[in-house]
């Protein structure tokens, strides 16, 4: 786990859980889930997506900064350096909800003191490959 991204104070952020009337879906090409100014964030960052019948085998959360230090979330909520290779992604073991959606927990930290923008990518692997979407936190 590196530096600044996780040294910041733990502030309960809650954003995103009800941001969409209709839950977005992920795609093989990668879906833009939104851009948010960091000052608009207030509590924990969580994303719920519509699976559209997909059956995820593994789930992943990664974060890219505007530099060479991409990271990935590992099960339990800690983060570690990631080499941007698909085969080194660590399963976060998020489970599907009963209504056919999937909720990704991203972070529960104050993001304002980070090097922005941060691009969070959520993805899952099905038997046919990856589907992903990304959320941009702008300065």
């Amino acid at each position, binding site marked *: 786990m590196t530096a600044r991204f996780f040294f910041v104070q733990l502030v309960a952020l809650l954003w995103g859980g009800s941001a969409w009337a209709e839950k977005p879906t992920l795609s093989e090409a990668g879906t833009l889930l939104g*851009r948010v100014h960091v000052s608009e964030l207030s509590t924990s960052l969580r994303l719920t997506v519509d699976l559209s019948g997909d059956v995820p085998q593994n789930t992943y959360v990664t974060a*890219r900064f505007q*530099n060479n230090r991409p990271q990935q979330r590992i099960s339990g909520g800690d983060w570690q350096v990631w080499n941007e*290779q698909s085969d080194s*992604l660590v399963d976060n073991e998020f489970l599907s909800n009963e209504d056919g959606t999937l909720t990704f927990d991203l972070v529960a930290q104050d993001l304002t003191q980070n*090097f922005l*923008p941060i*691009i969070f990518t959520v993805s899952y692997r099905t038997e046919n490959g990856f589907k*992903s979407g990304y959320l941009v936190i702008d*300065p």
Partner: protein
Amino acid sequence: MRRCIANIIGATVSFFWATGVSGQSLTVADVDQIVSQAVAEARAQVADDAVIAVVDRVGNVLAVYAIDPNNIPDVTITSGRGIPAGNGLEGLTLPITPLATISKAVTGAYLSSSGNAFTSRTASQIIQENFNPGEFGQPSGPLFGVQFSQLPCSDLTRFGEVLGGGPRRSPLGLSADPGGLPLYKNGEVVGGIGVLADGVYGLDLSVADFDRDLDELIAVAGQQGYEPPENIKGHRIAVEGKLFRYTDVDARFLSTSGSAATINQDSYIAVPGYTPAGRRAGQQYGAEASGITPDSGIDVPGLDAFVLSDGFGNNRYAPRDGVAPAPAAGGITQDEARTIIMEALGVAFRARAQIRRPLGSHAQVTVSIVDAEANILAIARTPDAPIFGTDVSLQKARTAAFASRPTTADELRSVDAIELIPGVLTIPALGTYADAVQAFIGPTALADGIAFADRSGGNLSRPFYPDGINGNTNGPLSKPFEVWSPFNTGFQLDLVLFDIVARFDGSPPPPQGCTGLPQSAAAPGPMPTRLANGLQIFPGSVPIFRGDQLIGGIGVSGDGIDQDDMISFLGLHNAGEILNTGIGNAPPELRADTLEVSGVNLRFVNCPFSPFLDSREQAVCGGK
């Protein structure tokens, strides 16, 4: 205590001597003074709708002042060659005057350093079809194409209204419209001023005369008291035996002699995506907050190198492993990236500078390394390298890697036409350029893995082929000369035109950067597109190979183009010798200079005569 103070002073002095960076910056009082001087001259010239921008050295916009904020006129983009609208940016009249002034100010700041002071008029001189402009039969300008750098869609440059680390983006790229000047304090460049008062964002088609340009006159007034030392002004520096043009007017032409006018604080306007209303102080270059700092000694050990910083003490682009290909598949390793960048900087520190004073200075450049899919592996620079070379070196590295892929033609064909202004301006499908190159060179061009340096691709991007022979047909990546201009270059602009126009509202860049080209496919999520900060078409890069496998690119920018070529080519070669891992330049038989096109071989690199300060070596790139 006395010894402690002495040590601090000693350390400060040695830092200055080592880096050429002494910690100057623009204060709020400086900004007010500069603007008030410009306003006084604007009023004296009855330029009551002038707009004035001031930026710091790393591109933070410190102020945009509209004399009449309720009456900011539109600006017309034109080269003055009579090319109608529907050809790139030519002929468009748009409500973007504040953005144009910012671009002019950024140009003055970014092209300059403690060893050279250039202006947007200098830029005009070095981006046209002949150097000098108007001298038929001469090759194109040495920085042909640099105007489309620092783009607002770049994945490298910083963006937003918040004052912070640079380098920052420029809304229209770099400007060739006279009226963009650098600002200096105690011999150190601290920013730039840009003025637009004549309603035209253009260029100077001829250096055979001296214009009395309204924008430039007002900018010169603003610059009074913040001028560069006389001996580093552009007109004291020569390339190919030709002096650069600094300005066409100077203080003798001012109506106000640098006196100040009363300014209205409400006239400091907000420009979304660049600055809030009001004015502010600039960042001190070299300090953490500027985004460019001395290396800690860890990432580029043993060299007086600077790096890009994230504002928290971390190197943004510390050397790392390649992503595509990964080291396990033959890609660049972290150690190789570090060795290449150190060897390239080592060549720069030995190289006789082309564009700097005093004579005998070493070259000042930025070096970027990417993998084969445009992922950034390392960036580092010499201390006083002009800021523009940061983004440009990355453009060059990516351009060399992209053009050398065996999939380049197919990837170009994946980008469809865009009707940008219905009925007026359509951006062609990029496949038309792949078709043109294959018709020009042969059916396997851009599909056979031939190694293209930026110089090679640049040969194909000029409005005359071969370069400089007026009346010849255009290269396949250029528009025909009848409609060509620095505002309508061809492939280079068509690749990013949509991205530029889409950012006129100040919106942030897409996370994958500019262009509709494919993204790196190493992993899920937005990855950089192949040319994520745009294409560059003047020399200073080579692709990186391991054996006959393309694994990346190295780009260099900041000094003369032959020096940039040499630093990239020799830096990579020397690193290969040290590493002995098979990494190095492309095998000679794969290089683009093996291609004969219309009776002329393309060029790969061109290294300068007697290039080093510490030896009499000649032909230093020969046989490598």
